[in-house]
């Protein structure tokens, strides 16, 4: 295999592994803040139990996000030297602001949030919890701004082959950024919600639930049932935006081979790029035009309009269907669980237990957010190919000139490490859920609080 393909696989493997963890921590930071505030308001120890248990899950996920993120900061240079040489004037400041406004903030206050309870006052500790959540969200803001700029570049001119910024506001708030940010933050909310709900359900099934389990489960189900419909709305708007700016991506993910009016929606089928058709397609007439352009008779551009400039069809065709399918399942499960909770609450005055089958479904969907998130990213990132900066810079032009055996060696090493870490992570989460008392709060009391005088 050539260095370009290996570099792409290596970067994709790395970023796929990395994104799993920020997707959890971005939203979980805000869950933790909520648990903390609820405890301060109600003084109910159950909220504190929820806070402590999930703080530990947060710390573990955060550590995995940090170490894989550091790898990425190096791979920009090792695998894509041409990218920073050509687009460094734009990508550089955006990445720089991420490090300066987000990384240090979250890393520093995480220490106080995790280990500072006996050393700082309750108020400072709450502030630290807030700053960690704020830092992770700021990080998402900057990196998604850069990612969106690569999809829908704006506010620049090309001088001597280099992208030079002209209007920074247009660069940061480029056309797809608001939609992508909303879509990603909601994806994080859903991933964290389902992770929390799933592990809590597992604790109830295994008899290892604590008071905090009920609180966290309820919070997660309510959050998921609010976030999921919003996610469909955000996804739809993001799709409209993509149709406007990256029509080739839409044509590929919908499997529209030729430009047509009143385009049908292909539910399933087997796309065949060589033959330029989708075999065994199950279609709904006019539906694609209706969904994408909000007009049943609208004309949609087909792949024939983008010779040599459209992404591979099959991967994003499938990834898109996985994303939408998992999202639909999440909506059904979230609403059904919310309804069950609401009904039980009315019947049994505060008893919060869901029926066993519902618990099994939730436990089975613990990592559903990961599946939807990864397939969504594959749609948008593979959908950007063959460009790195859409319409202006091709991926092949900026790849490393390193010999491919060297990349193959490191790729193998990364894959082994990541595979083992993923298995360990899931195993440890399960172990933690089953042994919550090993991870029970060891909260300091009275005089211990604030003794550092700060």
């Amino acid at each position: 295999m050539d260095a370009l393909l290996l570099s792409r696989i290596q970067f994709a493997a790395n970023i796929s592994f990395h994104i799993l963890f920020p997707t959890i921590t971005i939203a979980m930071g805000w869950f933790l803040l909520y648990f903390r505030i609820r405890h301060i308001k109600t003084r109910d120890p159950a909220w504190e139990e929820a806070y402590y248990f999930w703080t530990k899950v947060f710390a573990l996920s955060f550590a995995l996000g940090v170490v894989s993120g550091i790898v990425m900061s190096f791979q920009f240079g090792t695998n894509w030297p041409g990218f920073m040489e050509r687009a460094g004037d734009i990508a550089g400041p955006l990445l720089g602001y991420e490090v300066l406004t987000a990384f240090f903030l979250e890393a520093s206050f995480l220490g106080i949030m995790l280990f500072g309870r006996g050393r700082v006052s309750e108020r400072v500790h709450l502030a630290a919890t807030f700053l960690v959540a704020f830092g992770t969200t700021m990080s998402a803001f900057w990196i998604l701004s850069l990612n969106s700029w690569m999809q829908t570049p704006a506010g620049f001119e090309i001088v001597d082959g280099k992208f030079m910024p002209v209007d920074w506001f247009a660069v940061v708030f480029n056309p797809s950024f608001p939609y992508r940010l909303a879509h990603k933050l909601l994806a994080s909310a859903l991933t964290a919600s389902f992770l929390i709900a799933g592990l809590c359900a597992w604790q109830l099934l295994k008899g290892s639930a604590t008071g905090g389990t009920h609180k966290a489960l309820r919070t997660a189900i309510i959050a998921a049932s609010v976030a999921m419909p919003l996610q469909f709305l955000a996804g739809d708007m993001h799709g409209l935006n993509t149709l406007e700016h990256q029509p080739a991506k839409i044509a590929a993910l919908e499997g529209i081979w030729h430009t047509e009016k009143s385009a049908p929606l292909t539910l399933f089928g087997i796309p065949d790029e060589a033959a330029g058709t989708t075999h065994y397609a199950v279609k709904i007439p006019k539906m694609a035009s209706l969904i994408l352009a909000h007009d049943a008779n609208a004309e949609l551009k087909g792949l024939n309009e983008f010779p040599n400039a459209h992404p591979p069809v099959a991967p994003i065709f499938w990834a898109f269907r996985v994303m939408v399918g998992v999202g639909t399942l999440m909506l059904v499960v979230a609403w059904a669980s919310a309804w069950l909770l609401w009904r039980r609450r009315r019947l049994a005055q505060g008893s919060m237990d869901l029926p066993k089958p519902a618990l099994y479904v939730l436990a089975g969907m613990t990592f559903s957010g990961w599946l939807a998130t990864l397939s969504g990213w594959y749609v948008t990132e593979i959908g950007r190919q063959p460009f790195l900066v859409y319409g202006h810079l091709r991926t092949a032009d900026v790849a490393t000139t390193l010999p491919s055996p060297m990349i193959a060696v490191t790729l193998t090493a990364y894959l082994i490490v990541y595979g083992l870490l993923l298995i360990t992570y899931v195993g440890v989460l399960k172990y933690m859920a089953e042994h919550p008392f090993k991870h029970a709060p060891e909260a300091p009391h009275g005089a211990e609080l604030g003794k550092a005088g700060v």
Partner: protein
Amino acid sequence: MNMTTWAEVLPLIFLAVMGLALLAYVILDGYDLGVGLLLPLAESKEQKDTMISSIGPFWDANETWLVLGVGVLLVAFPMAHGLVLQALYLPVAVMLIGLILRGVAFDFRVKAPTKYVPFWNRAFFAGSLLASASQGWMLGSYITGFDKGWLGLAFSLGIALTLPAAYILLGAGWLIMKTEGELQEHAVRWARRVLWPMGFALVAISAATPLVNPGVVAKWFSVPEVFGLMPIPLSCAIAFFAVRWVVTHPNVVKAGYGWVVFASTVLIFILAFFGLAYSIFPDIVIGRMTVWQAAVSTGSLTVIFVGVAITLPVIIIYTIYMYRVFWGKARALTYN
């Protein structure tokens, strides 16, 4: 060279920011990695727990200085970033895998089932070793201008052995400050054992540097520079013997002067850093690229400069605040 215009000064400012970030990284993550390298020498589970809890709240923020250093290289000097990182491709990968192992071991060793604790302790040590040795290798390789001849490789190997030794001294110094009782006595002994090998290696490297990089000789040994530069090796020697005095006199540690070990080691790091910076300047890739050739446009640098000027002081303030919160002796690690 006339250095009056903003366009010429700005790359220098970023060179300083990058250098200071990397210096901060080497010192701050240096003591973390040093503690990791010393971990197998601890005698009991309690000692291991205390050692790790002494760095637990800090490591994450410490590692962020590496991201800032590489980030500035990437952001401000993209030409050099691609060149340096491609030349150091394999050691970078080794370091990253080491940092991954070390970073996840912090969490896994307290959260995984108890029977896996020894495994994660070993991973913690192995990760620290891979990371520190590959950092030494990279530094050596960088100084030789990525020379692939036997002399260059031998030089890189020398630093790959020396840097972990220096980190061990730093880590032992940190433990002397942050722990008490038996563990503190161990730390003093560890510092005493590693001191001479490290000192010898540092002198050997300094003597070998002109061999691999002839340009250095003229910079250091011409008159009057040689007199202006004499304080650097002299201060290093004083710091070295200050460490030696403290670690060979247990009563000095008991009297509360254990911090001298850490402070003197930090001083040696700082002096070595400035000596190196003086040798290399104004190149960013030795013999191939100067700071100005590697920099991005003035406009983009200005945009980042505004961010750096506002956020870096704030970062430094809350970093100091964090160290104040966790001031004093480390206790067994609880998530309190």
